[in-house]
């Protein structure tokens, strides 16, 4: 066990993948000599060479598109797009080709590729650097979408993603890269794709979230606790395929749910969770499921991020609303 933050845990997972499988290559803008703008891949090019950790031209469609060919050609590309907001130029390659090559060729050609996307706000970044537009990948059949929120999960999910025979979108919550440290095995291990994690058990209301918002949700649960409300907090960890069972079990018990994510509200992934919950547990619901999300605006620049991002206060208030219904 080694104490790592989330960025280091991903770095460790990348290092393992590169060490244990010759087919693995990491490619992206500035991932090599520079170690990535978040230093996630720091030292990996020195260790594994320029043919394994590859600095690319500034061309996101080019990165993903060539990686499709690399994957079909027997490699296991791990692609880093510098920020989720810069994955849009690659959207056609991802939606039209990465996600579809297996189906198009009926299993003959496959794209075992991991696409790493640092995402989310809260660091006062410039425009386009705080996106949480996972909805565009979620509604694209053929992709799996995972989001770790702890160093342990980050390494474990990355290992699973690299081993997966199909493409995986791997969201990295920027705000958590260096927020917490914990013990993580130095050697490879799996956190299976498709399993939610109950962060804390509770009886009165279920708070469902993922990524950086786990932090706010934990804090909200703590505050609710001081008010005598016992909240169950669940980190879904995988958006696609969603572990509906864990959510259903929890909400059947609590009868109340708040879904929290930082994407824009309309058509964000929270809607999908709500839609499934009402379908599975309608008659257990004591109150409408609340959503606490980003708003239907552009993610604001530094000074007014707090107008946009779900806050502890908003989550607590939403939980109270479900309790008062």
């Amino acid at each position, binding site marked *: 066990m080694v104490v790592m933050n989330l960025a280091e845990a991903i770095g460790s997972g990348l290092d393992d993948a590169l060490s244990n499988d010759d087919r693995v*290559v990491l490619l992206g803008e500035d991932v090599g000599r520079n170690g990535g703008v978040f230093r996630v891949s720091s030292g990996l090019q020195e260790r594994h060479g320029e*043919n394994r950790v590859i600095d*690319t*031209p500034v*061309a996101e*469609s*080019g990165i*993903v*598109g*060539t*990686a*499709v*060919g*690399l*994957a*079909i*050609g*027997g*490699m296991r590309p791990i692609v880093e797009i510098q920020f989720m907001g810069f994955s849009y*130029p690659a959207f*056609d*390659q991802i939606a*039209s*080709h990465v996600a579809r*090559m*297996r*189906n*198009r*060729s*009926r*299993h*003959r*050609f*496959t794209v075992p590729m991991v696409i790493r996307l640092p995402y989310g706000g809260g660091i006062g970044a410039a425009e386009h650097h705080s996106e949480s537009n996972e909805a565009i990948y979620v509604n694209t*059949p*053929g992709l*799996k979408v995972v989001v770790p929120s702890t160093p342990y999960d980050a390494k474990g999910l990355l290992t699973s993603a690299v081993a997966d*025979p*199909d493409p995986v979108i791997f969201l990295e919550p920027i705000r958590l890269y260096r927020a917490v440290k914990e013990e993580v095995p130095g050697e490879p291990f799996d956190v299976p794709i*498709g399993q939610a994690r109950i962060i804390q058990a509770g009886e009165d209301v279920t708070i469902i979230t993922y990524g950086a918002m786990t932090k706010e949700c934990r804090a909200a649960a703590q505050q609710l606790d001081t008010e005598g409300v016992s909240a169950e907090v669940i980190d879904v960890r995988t958006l*696609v*395929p*969603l572990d509906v069972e864990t959510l259903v079990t929890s909400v059947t018990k609590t009868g109340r749910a708040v879904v929290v994510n930082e994407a824009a509200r309309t058509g964000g992934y929270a809607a999908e969770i709500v839609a499934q919950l009402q379908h599975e547990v309608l008659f257990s619901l004591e109150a409408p499921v609340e959503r606490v999300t980003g708003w239907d605006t552009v993610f604001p620049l530094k000074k007014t991020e707090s107008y946009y991002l779900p806050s502890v206060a908003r989550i607590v208030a939403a939980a109270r609303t479900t309790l008062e219904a």
Partner: protein
Amino acid sequence: MEQILTPEGTLIADSPLGVDDVRRLYRSMVAARLFDRKSVALQMQGRLATYAPFEGQEAAQVGSAAAMRSDDWMVATYRDAAAMWMQGYPWESLFLWRSGDERGGRPPDDVPVLPPSITVGAHMLHAVGLSWAAKLQGRDTASVTYFGDGATSEGDFHEAMNFASVYSTGTVFVCQNNGYAISMPTDRQTSSDTIAQKADAYGMPGVLVDGNDLLAMYDATSVALARARAGDGPTLIEALTYRIGPHTTNDDPGRYRQRREEDEWRLKDPIERVRRYLEAMGVWDPAWQAEIENVESEVIESAVGQAEAVESQDLEMMFGGMFETPTQNLIAQRELMRPHLEGE
């Protein structure tokens, strides 16, 4: 413009191929045209979905594909059935695919050809990645990618050319400049005099070739592939040719071009010029022509038969096509759908 065989069937440079090989490729072009016309006919009968004819482009496709090694990757488009077939993609798969069945997208295991690309431009990057993979693996396998004049306007063309040259991959870019992107003539697609000259933007050789000249296409592609295998990087080949038919069976070229233009290009027919050459060499006669047409037609008919005899797809194929192991979600959806199958 590189030319070896004139439209009159006269050699104006050394032939890169012996006469037997030319005869073999002539036969391939004849077969391809039969396939093309058969497909158009089947489409009119409602037995195929929309079809994109390649008549007029047989030399561009057959000549270039003939230069490939059997393990070289091919990444081509909806209009490149002749090239794909040359590299091993079966006629029956092409028919099956065109009939609206995903299984036609799966070539036999030893055929290194991706299913035809429908999106314009994106697939060139896949070809770059394939040859790059080979390079990283220490193999000299190359890739050849086919695309049209219209495709050169897409950002992905640029990114593919750039990646190929930056990583010096063994990629051969074959642009069939057939004069049109649907209704848009090439001279309004781009302001450069040639597409070949775009290679210079990437420090890559670019060659302009008579795309209706089987021998020139074979030669240019051979040179490019030798370069690729030697580790000297990619090449752009512009094959100047013409689509004699409509863009697809849905298209009406009368809306955007003159009949006269089509007639002019018919005079440069890629098959006829080889026929003349072979005749002059004394290795063509009408009987042989009839014979190969018969045999190839039978082969094609039998491929149609095979494609049409395939049993219908079941739900498992659709829901099972997405991942190596279908997710619980997909299995659940399949079961939701099952009761509604009969009702349709």
